[in-house]
């Protein structure tokens, strides 16, 4: 998995200050999030439940209306696309959900579910379509006698493979995996991760891989972005993130996930405040309440998104963070 950086004109997917709120602005789900996914690369989007990860995924697919910001797919803002352009974009972006048993239409056979996108996007002739479907099933490790069965006749692992096949059948450039392995058993999870790794290598598909499990992200992602209460706190290449995480929250997540030493007992304030976004004060850092390295300034003003400068040219512009611990002057030696 070479991680050399190719610089096409635009990144495959770029979010600029995306904001989403529910129940007409009273509850902010996503607050000015910006990140980009390069062609053939996988970005891991990490965060606790309720951090807004799924809302971002649904906004990209226009299942949810965004209040502000842009979602650029190959340089074009998805929200301003006309029907023809939107149809082409929708063909190129697909999604795999968390619950395999709820991702397939129960009353339709596997064949019908797999053929539906091809028919909708009018790809190829009927014979070509069934050939494509059979080929895709082989890629996900299923043989084509599954075609005439109904979803409830399969195991969770097989259902998730069928869901992945459905996402791949229109040859997408980007697949959003929304906690796609979180509800699978360890051995099934490993098989699906193995499948995704082969898809990354052989087909060069870009993944926006959403998960709350850092170990899974480590296994599969080229870059990592951390979200907390609707805001993007840090984005970095995987190797940098897992060796020297910049943001205190990233450090906390890493120490929790590695379980090697007992975690700092969370202070009561965070304990009694139910997770999810309710009373968010715009004028302070969103993580100030729970931060172990909190400073007075964190309570007064919101940290801007700054890029950490690196000596070697290759790393320029790939690591940014929103925290008062850092400002424009920090130069990282590596």
């Amino acid at each position, binding site marked *: 998995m070479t991680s050399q950086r190719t610089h096409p004109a635009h990144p495959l997917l770029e979010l600029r200050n995306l904001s989403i709120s529910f129940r007409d602005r009273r509850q902010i789900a996503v607050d000015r999030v910006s990140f980009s996914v390069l062609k053939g690369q996988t970005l891991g989007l990490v965060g606790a439940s309720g951090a807004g990860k799924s809302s971002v995924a649904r906004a990209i697919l226009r299942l949810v209306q965004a209040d502000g910001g842009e979602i650029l797919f190959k340089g074009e803002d998805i929200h301003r696309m006309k029907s023809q352009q939107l149809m082409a974009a929708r063909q190129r972006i697909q999604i795999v959900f968390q619950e395999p048993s709820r991702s397939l239409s*129960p*009353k339709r056979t596997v064949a019908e579910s797999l053929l539906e996108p091809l028919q909708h996007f009018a790809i190829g002739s009927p014979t070509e379509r069934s050939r494509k479907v059979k080929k895709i099933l082989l890629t996900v490790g299923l043989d084509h006698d599954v075609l005439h069965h109904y979803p409830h006749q399969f195991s969770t692992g097989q259902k998730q493979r069928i869901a992945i096949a459905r996402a791949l059948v229109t040859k997408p450039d980007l697949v959003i995996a929304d906690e796609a392995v979180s509800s699978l058993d360890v051995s099934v999870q490993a098989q699906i991760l193995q499948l995704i790794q082969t898809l990354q290598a052989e087909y060069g598909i870009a993944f926006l891989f959403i998960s709350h499990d850092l170990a899974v992200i480590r296994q599969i992602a080229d870059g990592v972005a951390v979200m907390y209460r609707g805001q993007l706190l840090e984005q970095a290449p995987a190797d940098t993130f897992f060796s020297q995480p910049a943001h205190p929250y990233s450090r906390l997540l890493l120490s929790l996930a590695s379980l090697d030493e007992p975690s700092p007992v969370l202070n009561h304030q965070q304990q009694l405040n139910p997770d999810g976004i309710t009373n968010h004060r715009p004028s302070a850092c969103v993580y100030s309440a729970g931060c172990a390295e909190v400073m007075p300034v964190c309570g007064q003003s919101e940290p801007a998104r700054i890029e950490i400068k690196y000596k070697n040219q290759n790393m320029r512009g790939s690591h940014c963070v929103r925290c008062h611990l850092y400002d424009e002057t920090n130069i990282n030696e590596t």
Partner: protein
Amino acid sequence: MESVWQRLRSDGYGMLGFYIIAVFALAALLVWSGLLGQSWAVVSGGRWESISSTHWFGTNLLGQDILQRTLFSSATAFEVGLSVTILSTLLGTVLGALAGWFRSSWLDELILWVKGVLDSIPFYLFAAAIAFALQGNRWAMHLAMVITFWTTTARIIRGEVIRLKQREFVEAARAIGLPPRTIIFRHVLPNTSHIVLVQATIVFVAAIKTEVILSFLGLGIQNGVSWGLMLAESSQEVLAGHFGNFAAASIALFLLLVGFNLLADSLQDAMDKRRSVS
């Protein structure tokens, strides 16, 4: 649907109900095709003749054969039941699906308002009003029932569509840009087929029972005979000790309704078991 059929076969009571309905349905078909119960109006004997070889169930006040009338009435019952059930279930399913899909939009609130209004008009008054408005039209009763029976089906289907709309396979369909119409009819409604079936059997029972009372009120069947009319007639005969008409109509009605209720219960259990699986 296929899994329900196997489960239904394994449930004794459900099958019993199904066979009872089949027998009555056969009788209705024979009547419609003119092979049975055609001489229900013919005066072929004395008043209130008791059970005999010529009149298996005896005769009524006018000397008409009660057996013929009972058989013809089963055809009337199916005519009322089927027409009301099919129309009201269709109406209820479509409006329920629309209300559910466009939840808390103006369309949803509008459908809920219409439903609320129709639910709050007392049914028999409504039927009387419709009968007035259509001046004794043969289909007044059926229309009144269709207009008011769809509301329960709509409420249940609306709840189910709201639940199904959040399912990931619907979001996947929306993500590739399928229009709502296709998603509703291709993905959402087929998953409610169970509920529609159970609700249809319940509406069928309600339709037949309502016909009986409407006929008693003089608003029901205008031409032909039905169990309701027979019971209305028998309400006087019974005081004079002649139970033939009353017995025949009530037993036939009771059996058919037991058949449908057994089937409805069995379908309901089959659905609950299936739902706990999915």
